[in-house]
Each structure stands twice: as C-alpha cells, then as structure tokens.
C-alpha cells in the first residue's frame, strides 16, 4: 500500500514537476486540506528511521488523519531546503546543521530530539585503540575534512592539542582503517562500526558524547510558520513518531525486519539492520526520556548544546528549541 502511494507521488512529481513546485510553494494550507504531509529523512531508508516505519505500518498516522510520505535523503540531498519550501512539513536534521541553516536565514525550530547522544564516535581497532580523547595524540585519523570543526571541538573540550593529530582526508568508508592507512576513523556509532562487525571485524568505539560533545542529533525541525499554522498536523506527526519509537525500543529486531519488508529495494542486509537498530537504542533513550518521554530535552541539555555549538562556530540561543509540540504530544 505504501509503495503504491509513493510511486504515484513519483509519477506526479516527474510529469508536473514545475507545476508541483509552484503548488507546493503556494502553501501548506492546501496540503492541510488533504492532510497530506511529508517527513524528509536525512539519509537513505534504513533502520535509522525504523520508528517512523512502525508508525506508518501500524496506521497510527492514518488514524490521526495524516497521509505521511517518508522522503529518503542521500549523499547529495540536504534536508533543510525541502522543509523551508514546504515540500516537507518536518525534516530530520541535527542541531549543528539546523543552526547553520538558521544563520543563513531559515526560520526553523527544533521540535524533538531523537538522538539524545550525538552518534559521532572515533572508531579504532583493538590492537591500537582510542579509548579516550588523549589517546588521539600521535594517531592518524581518517575523516571528511568537512568534519574538522567536530574534531576541533572534541579536542578543546578535552584539552587535547589538535596539532598532535594527523588528519587524513577520507570519505565515508571503513576501508582505510582496515588497510592501515589510518589508525582511527571519525564516523557514526551506528554505521561503519556496524559494517565492520558484520564483516567479522571487532572495533573499539569512543562515543564523543561521553566526552563532552553535546550536539543533539536526528532532530525534528519545522518552520515557525508551520508551528504557528499547522499545529494539529505537527502534533499528530510527532505523536506517531513518539509511539513508533517507543515500539521500536520494545523490539529492535522486529523494527529491522519491518525496515527490510517495507524497503526491499534499498539493498539492506537484515543482520546489519538488526545490529544498527540495537546500537541506536542507547543513543536515543536515556534517564531523561525515561521520565519525560521520547524526544525530550531540558534547559540543561540545551545549555550544553549551545556550548558545544559555540565551539563549532555556531551562535545559537535557547529559543532554537521549541518544546510546545512535544509537550502537547506527551501531555495528551
């Protein structure tokens, strides 16, 4: 059922692209009448977004009168523009990317935080491990040069001299680590280490969030206009997300299986998806979400984010975060 709908969207999108862009640009109200909303994901379909798949599969959105499309991202698919243009009601961004977009004039607020802990890790091999930031000294780290500010922030937070680290520009693959071109990689807890584990290679990961790097990730963003004028849709969408992710947590294996079932053409491997889904749980759920519910944040976590974002060269104020939608969801 879902694939059909997406196919139809695709065909419409192809033929009437110019027209469609105009109509969508004209405004959310028209979409509202059909309760047709899109959630722009930040990457290709995978169990990274399995909570959303559960919400869709169990009909929690359609019960609430929403017809939700989950738009896949990709290596060349920025999340923020479709949200600004109204193509997507909500996007999955991260606090640092959202802050950058807001600096460029995008009218965004963060509505919810899926990843309480930032997923960035330094991954290394057990015979030459990086267990804490001080271990980085004298090591060759493979990373995209675009992430230099991330490493810089980690070094500043932990009094490590970044000049003592040898940065080797690599793109996103574990291969340079295995080939011995680098001693460690800057990557996500949930992808390259998972890929290595599936290939039978043990790795050591140092979660940057455990060493002061506080940047909310997989954050839900929407425009001020949507928050003012489409509250009902936003509450319904976020409510489905919250229920979906709570169900995800109960059985991550089932979530991974659903991912494969819903997206058979995404080229996903079940074991990889299961491991990824399991590894994601400690990043998404904490004492904070335990007592307040999925997606929550407090003034303290926001303050920590603002501090880290400042190290990344982003100046933000606490009003970048707007908890009103989430409060409505959890209060209901």
């Amino acid at each position: 059922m879902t694939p059909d709908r997406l196919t139809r969207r695709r065909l419409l999108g192809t033929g009437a692209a110019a027209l469609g862009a105009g109509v969508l640009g004209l405004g959310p109200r028209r979409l509202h009448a059909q309760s047709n909303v899109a959630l722009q994901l930040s990457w290709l379909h995978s169990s990274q977004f399995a909570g959303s798949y559960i919400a869709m599969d169990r009909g929690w959105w359609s019960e609430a009168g929403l017809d939700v499309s989950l738009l896949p991202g990709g290596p060349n698919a920025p999340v923020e523009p479709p949200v600004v243009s109204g193509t997507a009601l909500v996007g999955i961004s991260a606090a640092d990317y959202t802050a950058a977009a807001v600096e460029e004039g995008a009218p965004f607020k963060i509505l919810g935080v899926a990843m309480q802990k930032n997923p960035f890790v330094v991954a290394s091999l057990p015979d030459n491990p990086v267990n804490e930031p001080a271990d980085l000294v004298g090591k060759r780290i493979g990373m995209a040069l675009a992430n230099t500010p991330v490493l810089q922030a980690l070094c500043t937070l932990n009094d490590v001299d970044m000049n003592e680290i040898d940065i080797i520009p690599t793109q996103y693959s574990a291969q340079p680590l295995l080939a011995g071109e680098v001693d460690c990689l800057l990557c996500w807890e949930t992808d390259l280490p998972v890929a290595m584990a599936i290939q039978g290679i043990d790795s050591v990961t140092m979660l940057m969030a455990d060493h002061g790097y506080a940047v909310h990730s997989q954050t839900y963003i929407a425009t001020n206009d949507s928050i003012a004028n489409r509250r009902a849709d936003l509450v319904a969408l976020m409510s489905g997300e919250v229920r979906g992710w709570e169900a995800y947590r109960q059985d991550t294996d089932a979530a991974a299986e659903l991912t494969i079932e819903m997206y058979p053409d995404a080229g996903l491997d079940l074991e990889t998806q299961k491991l990824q889904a399991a590894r994601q749980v400690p990043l998404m759920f904490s004492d904070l979400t335990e007592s307040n519910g999925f997606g929550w944040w407090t003034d303290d976590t926001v303050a920590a984010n603002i501090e880290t974002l400042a190290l990344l060269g982003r100046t933000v104020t606490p009003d970048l975060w707007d908890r009103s939608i989430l409060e409505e969801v959890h209060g209901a």
Partner: protein
Amino acid sequence: MTGLSLVHAGRPARGMTARGYGAWLGVLGLLLVWEALAHVVSGAFVLAAPTEILAYLVEDRGLVTRALGVTLGNAALGYVFGNLAAIALAALALLWPRSERIVTGLALLVYCLPLVATGPILRVLFGPGAGPQITLAALAVYYTTLIPLLVGLRAAPAGWFDLVRSYGRGRWSELVHVRLMASLPYLFAGLQIAAPAAFLGAMVGEFTGAERGLGVLTVRAIRALDVDMTWGVATVATAVAILAYVGLGMIARRFLRDAPPVILAAPASDTVRDSGSGWKAAIGVTVIALAGWALAFWVFDLNPFFAKGPMDVLDALLLAEDAGATRGTLAVALSETAVYLLPGYFAGLAAGAGLAMLLVLVPVIAGTAMPLAIALRSVPIVTTAPLVVLLLGRGATGTIVLVAVMVFFPTFVACLHGLRQAPGQVLDVFDSFAAGPVSRLVRVRIPAMLPAFFAAARMAVPASVLAVTVVEWLATGAGIGSLMAMSASLSDFDMLWSSVVLVAAISALGYALVGSVERRILRVYAPEQLT
C-alpha cells in the same frame, strides 16, 4: 599499398577474425589476472574477484534487476528529452543561423554546470520523485548530440546543394534531401555517446534522495564495506553503458552505410571569419544566461533561502562584508582542484594521442585496443571513482588518474580516427620516396590528426571538470567538488551558487581557450580545415 590498407583499417578487413580471437584472449587474460589479484588482496576490502562478483549478481539478481530497471527507465526518459532538446536547438540554429553562436554558447554553459551542485538544486525544484534523475540524464546528453548534429547539418558537399538548386528546388528540399541525410551519421554518433552519459546522469540524480536504483545501491554497498556488492553494481552499470553504446552503434549501421563518425565536434573554425563576433556572442550568451536565471526564479517563485539569483551571487562575491572570505574559500578550493585537474587533463591528452600514434606505427594491436577504448569510454564515473580511489589511494594519484582516464578515451578514439584520415595520395607520394613510417607519421598523419585531437581536447574540458568534482565529492573530500557538497549540506547557498557560477564559467572559458589554441595551430599545420 600499406598506406591504403591503413586508411581503411576502420572497416572490417581480412585480418579481422584473427584480431577477434586476440581481443577475446586479451579479455580472458585480464580476467585471470584480476581474479588472482583479488585473492591476494582479499583482506584489504578493495577488490572483488570476477567469480565473487558473479556470485553476488546471481544471489542478489532480483534486487539488482529491479534497481537496474528503475535507473534505466529514468535514464531512458532523460535520454529522450535531452536528445529532443538537442534536435530542437539544432533546428533553431539551422532555421535562424544568426542564433547558432548564442545557442551553442548557452548550451555549453548549461552543459558545464557542475552536477554535484545542480543535483540538490534540482531536488528542491522538483520535490520528491524522479525529476532530478531524469533532468540530470537529459543535461548529460543534449550537448554531445547537439554539437555533432550541427556539424552534420553542414557536412554536405556544396555540389549537392547546387544539384538541388539546378532542379529549381528551394531550402525545404535542401533540408530534407541533403542536410538531413548528411546529418544522420553525426546524429547517430551523438546518440551513441549520449547513451552511457544518460545512465551516469540518472545514477547521480539518485544521490539527491531516491528510494531505489543502482546509485542507491552503490552508496549502500560502499558504506557497508560490501566489496562484492560494490563491484557487482559497478559491473552491471558498466556493462549496461557499454551495451547501450554498442547497441546504438549496431542500429546506426542498419540505417547508415558507414559506421558513425567518432569525432564529435567540428574544428573551432567559425570564429576565424571575424574575431570581433566571438566577443559579441560571448557577451550575448552571458546576458541571456543571467536574464534566464533571474527569470526562472521569478516564474517559479523560489524561496530565497536556497535560490540565489545573479544579484545574490554578485553580492556574495563582491559587495558583502564577508565577500573577501568567500572569495578566499573559493580560491583555495579552486586551486586545490586545479592541482589535480590540470595534470590529469594534460596526461590524458598526451596518453590518448601518444597511444594512437603508437598504434599507427604498430597496427597489429589496434584491432584489440580500439573496441576496448570505445567500450571503456562509456564506463560511468560514479561507479569507477570510488573503485579507482580504493585502488590508488586518496592522494593525488587516484584523482589525477581518474581525470586522465576520462580525457584519455575520447582523445584516443578521436586521434586514431584522425591519424587514419591522412589522404591516401599524400601517403602514396611518401611511399614512392620510400619514406619510413615515422616520417609519414610526423609529416602526414599528425597534421591530419590535429583537428580531431583538438575537438577531443575541447570536449574533454567539461568532462574532466565533471570527473574531478565527482571524485572530490565522493572520494577525496577536497577542492571545489567537496566545497559544493559541503555548502549544500550546511545551507551555505550563497557559496553553492557562487561555486556553480565559477565552475561553469571556468569550464566554458577553458573550452574557448582550447579553441583559440586550436585555431592558431591549425592555421599553421592544417589551414585547409579552417574554411
């Protein structure tokens, strides 16, 4: 006699069967070496053996077939739209000859837009769906069809027009009976080279957010460290691109008496007539491009957050407070790119021309090398870029080699063709003086090769820019390609649009620069080409 047989070496000759065997033996040997090498380095997650690739493709045939279907479908639509656009533009240039310079100039400028940056922009314009895939496929093909078609429409001998006129017929008959017939081989040449390009465009389009397709599988496989899948998908993409190329060649031969020409552009001779009009055309193209850009924004009513117009770019580059910093960032990125681009470009040209000359001196291997080069010309770079960088490393070597490879194949094919165009009578004269093969090469064949060489060198400018930006984006993370990808993800759209403008302008200028070098050299060595 030797001279004559060389001139006709492009057509099937008596030695063909032996050469056919040789080609197959060569391929078999290559596969064996590949297999052995893959097993030697199996722990490095770099190379999959042919047997492993085959095993993967058999096991996951359903997945790969469905992905191929999606990508192929989008590529086909883009191919049709792009080629129709090319034919329409050629018709415009033919019916209104004054517009030709402007049409080709604008077409070149649009062709030079870097797809790393146009991808996300198109995604925003089209929203969800296959719009960006189809558009990028269309953008990848229309120029390489338009240019040979324009050449073809003028390729008829003057005597044919005299004949039509002597029957008292007008321009319409001229068009139908002479021009269209004369242009067919050129049209087919364009359509043939366009097929693999459309496939590449469709794959890159998938990187802007697609649910299925070979591009999606490529990204997935590389991240998952799944070497068999990475090479499996690359093999399918390569095979399809080559088959499309060869298949269209076969169709062309059903319609035409000779194989389609391999040279895709005419000598840059037009501007010789009066050098002033070149500037006029350049200014016209710039004005129309800027006006069209501003107009499109007004028509589509795009959000100024990501849609930056000419004034925004001017502001970002010259007037804004941080304009100096923006220019600095762009200059650093462009110079990083130049370090890879220029050596790769010149190495590719030198290798292409050099190997072609070597093959003329040692014609035995030409039978194997020519079809191989033509086939490899169609290998899609998005699949090869990660592979070459895996094999050669992330340093300068990998990138330079990839750029060189992109330049090499078309140059080689064009030069070999050009070398064989040497007039038989002139070669006979050299024969009668018992001149050696080297002397014939230097005095007859190389001058005859120059127009083809320069045509390839010009077309190689946008191709090498495409190659270097794709490698920087997908593999090395340096230079302007990476800057564009990064600006898009950090919402720095002023930087993104400024990069697009600079890259397109520099590519177009590079193309023009090669054209002016070409005219200077042809004036001395092959003045008959500058008619």
